[in-house]
């Protein structure tokens, strides 16, 4: 199988009408993939994360025709600006609001954009942020992604409703790829939602997201990972934030047996402002690892990170985050906080915050807390008439709330809150 994979990649690319440059990049990425060693325990980034279950040699592109998961949409179609749904490798745009149409916003499959917006895609896709050389997973995705989503918000366009990308996995490995680019002074909210159910589990998912936040623009990007409980999932999410631009990302980890997220924001222009938010609610034997990077490469920029994990059962979480301030990045202001709440004695949370500061005029702080539910909180709520279960669920809700509160768009916030609560109260669809 391995020997024929490059041919399969080339054939699929040709049959899907992709341009030659893209086919060449896929081939080059596959070469990088094959020559890059798989992560091992001895790599610092993978010391706490077991990837021995991954079938590196068996990686192959998704083929057409597999039956995707049948799931209800997370919100009313009309409450979105644009709703794009990928089922298996097939991408369709289900809705475009008049506002999004008038604003000239582009939301199409990445495969289509490689032809229609060839210059932009060629310029941004897997070049600056997530090149194949970034690692074996990034190389794998660059070679094997199919469908994908391309979002371009033109200069000055301001959308009041979110752009929604839904990826429903089919019964085979899935390689989502998203590219978002916001023009100068524009403003948009993007929600990406990964979903599957037991009937159509992808088993293996490896997604890559690149966010280019243009000068003075505002982007809120929210990612929900809601695979079924058998899936193993990787997410590489990289952002570049230009002068005076604002980016808020929120990663919501609910599903999967295994999840590893590499989240990085590079602040490239003065006045850039980044908020990295994350919540994970893990139960059973779930494992989730988030590695984050706030990379200050410019003066006078700010970043603020808040990752919250709630763990039940024998779940495990790893949070490892770095604030990096490059030598010339004076007057950087960076904050990083990780909170872990254990609902019983079984789970384990590793928290490794790091600062790498090479400039001398900066303000960087970090904090990490890991705790169980405080019996005094239960007592206080009990003294107001709330039973034990009600009090616990209120406290867990409250643990997520400060993060969900940071999602700027009310529609997105409410959809995410509903999904988190559904899992919390045992009514999750998956």
């Amino acid at each position, binding site marked *: 199988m391995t020997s024929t994979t490059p041919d399969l990649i080339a054939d699929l690319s040709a049959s899907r009408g992709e341009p030659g440059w893209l086919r060449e990049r896929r081939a080059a990425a596959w070469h990088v993939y094959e020559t890059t060693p798989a992560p091992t325990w001895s790599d610092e980034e993978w010391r706490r994360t077991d990837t021995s279950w991954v079938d590196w040699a068996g990686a192959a592109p998704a083929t057409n025709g597999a039956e995707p998961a049948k799931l209800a949409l997370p919100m009313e179609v009309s409450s979105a600006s644009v709703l794009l749904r990928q089922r298996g490798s097939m991408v369709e745009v289900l809705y475009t609001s008049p506002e999004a149409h008038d604003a000239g916003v582009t939301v199409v499959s990445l495969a289509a954009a490689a032809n229609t917006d060839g210059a932009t895609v060629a310029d941004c896709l897997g070049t600056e942020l997530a090149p194949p050389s970034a690692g074996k997973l990034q190389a794998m995705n660059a070679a094997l992604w199919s469908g994908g989503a391309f979002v371009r918000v033109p200069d000055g366009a301001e959308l009041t409703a979110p752009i929604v990308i839904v990826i429903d996995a089919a019964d085979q490995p899935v390689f989502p790829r998203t590219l978002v680019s916001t023009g100068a002074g524009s403003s948009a909210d993007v929600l990406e939602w990964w979903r599957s159910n037991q009937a159509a589990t992808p088993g293996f998912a490896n997604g890559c997201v690149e966010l280019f936040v243009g000068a003075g623009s505002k982007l809120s990007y929210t990612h929900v990972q809601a695979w079924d409980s058998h899936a193993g999932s990787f997410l590489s999410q990289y952002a570049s934030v230009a002068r005076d631009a604002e980016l808020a990302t929120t990663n919501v980890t609910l599903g999967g047996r295994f999840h590893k997220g590499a989240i990085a924001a590079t602040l490239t222009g003065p006045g850039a402002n980044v908020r990295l938010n994350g919540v994970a609610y893990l139960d059973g034997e779930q494992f989730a690892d988030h590695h984050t990077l706030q990379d200050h490469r410019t003066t006078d920029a700010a970043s603020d990170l808040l990752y919250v994990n709630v763990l039940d059962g024998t779940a495990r979480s790893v949070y490892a985050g770095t604030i990096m301030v490059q030598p010339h990045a004076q007057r950087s202001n960076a904050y990083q906080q990780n909170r872990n709440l254990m609902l019983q004695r079984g789970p384990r949370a590793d928290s490794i915050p790091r600062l790498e500061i090479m400039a001398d005029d900066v303000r960087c702080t970090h904090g990490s807390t890991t705790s169980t539910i405080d019996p005094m909180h239960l007592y206080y709520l009990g003294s*107001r008439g709330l*039973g034990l279960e009600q009090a616990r669920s*209120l406290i867990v809700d409250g643990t*997520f709330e*400060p993060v969900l509160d940071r999602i700027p768009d009310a529609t997105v916030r409410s959809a995410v809150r509903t999904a988190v609560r559904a899992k919390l109260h045992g009514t999750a669809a998956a």
Partner: protein
Amino acid sequence: MPRAPSACPGFSRKNRRKLGRAYARCYVWEEQLGPARSPTRTILQPARIVFLGDHRRETHSLRMTATNGQTTLSIRDLHVSVEDTQILRGVTLDVPAGEVHALMGPNGSGKSTLANTLMGHPAYEVTAGQVHFKGQDVLELETDERARLGLFLAFQYPAEIPGVRVASFLRLALNARREAEISVMEFRRLLMEKMQMLRMDPKFASRYLNEGFSGGEKKRNEILQLAVLEPELAILDETDSGLDIDALRIVADGVNRLRGSDLGVLVITHYQRLLNYIEPDRVHVLIDGRVVESGGKEVAERLEAEGYERYGAAAASEDA
């Protein structure tokens, strides 16, 4: 077999027509409690009537006659220890429905221990004695069951619970005490009315519970909860500590508006100051885990003048 509410003392035919809803509520209580618990009946029925704001004036005298002298909270020979240290050594105390009692004592005398034992704090172990509230054995009940029965504790140090908004928490708590859920709109109106009474900024409702509150805001928030939840017995555990004089007045004013035959209050304090604003019916002095004196408000005045030293041996324990 439910008994006709006309058996309630003071229930004339005229009153019954006016108090249609109260009539229905009396009926419910009769059904729930049954004739076997009839001694508590005369307390409970009037307690429900007073929720009908429109008829306050007409029902006032009725309530007074019906409730005076009936004991809501009865503590007998209560011994409590924390981690094998005996704190309470035989406390006996009654708080009748609708009365305000003050419990005074030096630091370390066991005031907060008593308050938290009544509410069911997990760290306090009752080694002997009984506590009855509305005829029920409180010590058999979980904290939340005590609360739903009508017991309330305004904490000296309320817990800070991030992410839980005052309004949503309080609505859950109120619903836990009601048979039918209150609508969001109706709750909003109730909350705003009570917040106005305590001169609180409406923004307060959407803040996280006690997180980042000043000492005074926390205490005010406790009284707000008291006002919204309408318990039958409220224990105020050093609500005056950490309050400036203006906040103290507002809080005391709030308590005074709530007091009446439907609310019994046990005010715990070690200064007489609060009692200038909330005038007690009775004052008890707790020294070294025992009530050593009970009397009218003159007891508090004498304490203010002479301190706790007059209780002799007790002075030794006043250094914590």
